[in-house]
């Protein structure tokens, strides 16, 4: 998910150059010139940056499927899918794939019978249930005996010096990232190719248990759950509830992978001591056989709406007060999308900017201010979020009113040229910092491609730079002037008083 970028106002300038020093023909395009795009006939896209200096390669695979793509009642499915990589593929990790599958299928059959029995409601035969349960467990254990142990690919990674491994499902996407010694980079192609070709259900029930962690643990997540009412009949509605992998069946996992993990729905970035020619050769060898299939159709989404009571209060123990305000906005494909990014930058443009003067000047109303253009994601209609911590002695109501005042002048006045210049400098500085390390550049490439439609950094900059002050005013009037949803996160100083 796009985490809010929280920047304490007084420190903001550290990240950006105020003077508009950006030369024409942007220097950042040098990053794109060093990138090669490879596309296989099945639609699979590879983005390659050769950095031969040090013998490592960073790999980042992104699937355009995340928590928002989980069918109703199957929360946790996206994490189970991306996490299944560590168990190996149908072939790798098994001593006897046929034997393993037969035993696993038998366990599934017994569990299906159990569920059918349970569906009978009050007439459940407990003795029969117990027997089925025992038989299913035994069959599951038997299937495990045909394997080379749990988490086979994890052991392959350890043995071969891989590091910085991550498998994570976020709101809109699922990511698999790691860094390998360049000498062994073919291993990545062999592992990932085999897994995408035929993922394994091995140790499914152990993983289901493993990922059955409550999603609503962090304060940010508790806060997110309060936004639930804004998303009726919308894929993001599901994010607002807890994870219950217990409801996920192995057949759900198979179906999810089959429909979402298709070449046209994947982007792979590879940065490090490997040539584009090598990538092409390995890609053809290990990925060309993946059948092409259309990416799944987007789910229906009713645009988020704010109606009825639009203020929620939550108390989070041990957290300081925060006022969060959200306005519905269109998804990331909207032509107005870059305007929201510029508004985000204007909200956090730091000392000297008009927003800063209004909210954090000599008699400050906020201590920190963060804006998130796409919250919680952007593949579907979403929210523009502003979060602020009150300055000492200020109430959450005062903060809310302060933000309303900011929007009021944004509706009538054009942003100052210096504020636009600050915003411009801030995203350049951030993009440069991201690109320094191999893993950072790989993540940046997949993000640009999947979230903004082009891996070319200059395309992103061109869109942002093309936003005019008039666009900002128009979008504020169009989207940020209707009713908004406000969330006050309360706290109590004395331990134990907050709930």
């Amino acid at each position: 998910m796009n985490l809010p970028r929280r920047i304490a106002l007084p420190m903001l300038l550290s990240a950006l150059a105020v003077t508009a020093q950006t030369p024409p023909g942007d220097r950042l395009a040098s990053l794109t010139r060093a990138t090669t795009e490879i596309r296989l006939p099945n639609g699979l896209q590879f983005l390659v940056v050769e950095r031969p200096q040090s013998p490592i390669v960073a790999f980042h695979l992104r699937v355009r499927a995340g928590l928002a793509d989980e069918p109703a009642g199957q929360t946790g499915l996206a994490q189970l899918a991306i996490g299944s990589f560590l168990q190996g593929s149908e072939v790798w990790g098994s001593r006897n794939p046929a034997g393993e599958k037969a035993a696993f299928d038998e366990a599934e059959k017994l569990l299906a019978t159990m569920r059918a029995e349970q569906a009978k409601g009050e007439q459940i035969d407990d003795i029969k249930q117990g027997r089925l349960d025992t038989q299913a467990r035994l069959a599951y254990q038997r299937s495990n005996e045909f394997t080379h142990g749990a988490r086979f690919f994890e052991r392959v990674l350890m043995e071969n010096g891989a590091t910085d491994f991550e498998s994570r499902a976020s709101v809109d996407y699922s990511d698999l990232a790691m860094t390998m010694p360049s000498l062994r980079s073919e291993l990545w192609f062999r592992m990932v190719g085999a897994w995408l070709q035929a993922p394994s259900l091995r140790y499914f029930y152990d993983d289901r248990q493993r990922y059955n962690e409550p999603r609503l643990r962090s304060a940010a997540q508790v806060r997110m759950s309060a936004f639930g009412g804004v998303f009726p009949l919308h894929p993001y509605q599901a994010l607002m509830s807890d994870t219950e992998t217990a409801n996920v069946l192995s057949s759900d996992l198979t179906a999810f992978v089959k429909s979402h993990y298709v070449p046209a729905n994947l982007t792979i970035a590879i940065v490090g001591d490997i040539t584009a020619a090598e990538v092409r050769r390995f890609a053809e060898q290990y990925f060309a056989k993946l059948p092409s299939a259309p990416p799944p159709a987007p789910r229906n989404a009713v645009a988020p709406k704010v109606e009825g009571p639009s203020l929620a209060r939550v108390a989070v123990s041990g957290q300081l007060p925060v006022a969060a305000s959200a306005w519905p906005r269109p998804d990331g494909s909207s032509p107005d999308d870059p305007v929201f990014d510029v508004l985000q930058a204007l909200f956090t443009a730091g000392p000297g900017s008009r927003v800063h003067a209004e909210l954090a000047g000599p008699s400050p109303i906020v201590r920190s201010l963060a804006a998130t253009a796409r919250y919680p994601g952007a593949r579907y209609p979403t929210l523009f979020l502003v979060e602020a911590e009150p300055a000492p002695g200020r109430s959450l109501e005062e903060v809310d009113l302060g933000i309303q005042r900011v929007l009021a002048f944004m509706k009538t006045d054009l942003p100052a040229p210096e504020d636009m210049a600050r915003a411009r400098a801030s995203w350049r500085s951030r993009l440069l910092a991201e690109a320094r390390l191999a893993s950072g550049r790989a993540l940046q490439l997949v993000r640009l491609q999947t979230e903004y439609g082009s891996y070319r950094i200059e395309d992103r900059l061109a869109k942002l730079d093309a936003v005019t002050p008039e666009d900002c005013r128009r979008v504020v009037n169009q989207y940020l002037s209707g009713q908004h949803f406000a969330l006050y996160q309360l706290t109590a100083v004395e331990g134990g008083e907050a709930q």
Partner: protein
Amino acid sequence: MSIRLLRLLTSFTMAATSGLLLAQLGKPPSQPAGGTGKNKAPAPAAKKAATAPADVPDLAAQTGDLSLGLRFGPASARGLRPLPVASFTLPNGLKVLTLENRENPVVHLFALVRAGASVEPAGKAGLASITARLVRSSGTESLTASALEDRLAALGVTLDGAAFDSRAQFAWRAPSDSFQEGAAILRDMLTAPRFDADAFDQAHEAAMGAVADRNNGPALILSRVFREKIFGPTSPVARQPGYDSLEKIAHADVVAFHRQHYRPEGTVIAIESDLSAADMKARMESLFGAWKSAGGQPPAAAPETPVPAPAASLSFADRPEARQSAFVLGHAGGRASDGDFGAMLLLCELLNSTLPRRVREAGGWRADWSAGWEPGFDRPGEFVVRALVEGPYTTQALQIAKDEINRYRTGQFSDRDLDVVRTGVLTRFALRLQSTSDQLFERSLTEFYGLPGDLAASVYQALATATRADVAKAAAARLQAPQTIAVLGSANVFDKPLTTILAKVEPIDLTIARPTSSKVQTDPESLARGKEAIAMLQKALGGAEKLAAIRDASIRYEGTVAVNGAPAPIAVHDRWMLGDIYRQDQVLKGSAPRSFFFNGRIAWLGVPGYVDPMPPDTLAQVRVEIFRLLFRLALSDRDPKRQVAAPGGNVILVNEGDKYSVRIHIDPKTNLPQRLLSRWTLASGAVVSIEEAFSAWKEFDGVQWPTHIETRRNGRKSDDVTVVEARFNSGLKAADLERKP
């Protein structure tokens, strides 16, 4: 009551790192996701392969081959590529390395100056650090300290500066577009720093504060003791600034040290940018060409302090409250240029892989290990095994470490053992040096110390190619039987006494000699003036009788507190009742709420659902808080245990024996306190100093109270808070203060 946020005096302080990337390999990186004990040997080759059906497509899959049937060339087939560095020396002796990088338009610049601790004058340990700090932050002739920070921020420049044992080091980074102006500022900082007296006072106070912090945390204590033992207490590597050495350092010393040691000859500057070598050369000539040494002839290189002959020793500090023990074990090591550097890194990886295994075999108690070969560039480094273990297993763990070292010393390991660790250590080595700027920094160090420019690449090759015989040979030559050991833990829970490891156990001295400047003034004249001054203070705060009638106080603050140097939002509620019942509740962003309670007999600190006795050093601070509650402090003339003096200069000194002393700076216009400086001594002898600046006074229930308070702790910016509510005599109840969270 004024605010100093109570803290658990456990330390976040980090020991200064050497900056030597190569040496940091002993620390294992983040592991692939989840779980523990994953790195098992591969599953036994398919015993049941004969029963496997014919549809298994690949023997490698069937056998669980962890290379998936691929065969890779030797690790030496890939390595670090030579950096295409251009170098030149300006006529003034400044050595410049340049590297062109057309991919990423960011400039990285590293400046290394021969101004480390090894060239400090005798008895003035700490001078190199104070000077480097002031070069970094005191400003330039044309920019004050705060104008400098603003300008660097506007240019997008980040800059760190610090002194190590044999160099001062400045790392600078900026977008290409800001290069010219940003580099000119750096030049001015290095060649003509502002060095004003205020900045010196702050840096000096911070250095004094660091002395107080030096016993915070086992890592700091153990590494200090370890280095003193192996290098001798006067070696620049081991010696540390104390109150005695810092009190000898004056502003003029910093100016003189800078004149003598910040000079172009001997200095190395390395730059990576998207400019061509020729372009960069022209710019560097114009930027730094006019830099001239001001201090006469370059000082002769300090003679290297000889390393004492290895001798077995065991130092110990008893920590009766500790559940875990921490120890270090090792001896002097080698230099980065030694041919067996790579072999010794591999050896430490072997130790890191087998020490946890030995613990599992011994019963599987909790132990964290880290073995490292940490070479020096211009001096011998260290071989050290660090451990954190469950208290009862301390001597067992020490014995395991000794046995393992001995096993490797006598060559008892296999080729397979070596292969298992080799791939991981190579990746981590490559990862540390993955960007060209990381490599350029490493390259600048080799240039500075006169080592071969391809050092990193050759160490990589050595890691890739060292055979079992090479590692065994290095181990036999390098690992020594007489080891230096230092232990912190609770002796009464140890499985066996430490004397079973070594007959003679020496105590670790954790006392810190007190600074002489905290001694209290007592001449009769200043005592008489003190009476007058405090009477005026009482009047300004609301009148002596008004203050004396205060039975309880409740103050709420909101603001920020420095956590690891960065401001973190905090909300605090302080409550006090007559009889010195005191409670503070804190909510710090990102932590569980904490409460501190003390009533003269009982002292605890709690988080929701859990209460612990208050650690002694925290209790010491609570006692100071009570001592210096403003309305109580202002009545110090009524307390026979306290002494009030006014030495002049609008200052009132209040002290209670030599336990507490407070210095109040009075605003002559209002007679209200402007600043309050408190010092107190911890059990260890360390002195803590807190300085508060008060402003925005308002009246609450007839009492004047500051509503804005900025705090410096041991010379460093700490808290910045606003009073949002102050109430006196509101009828607090002891039961509310005592309630556990």
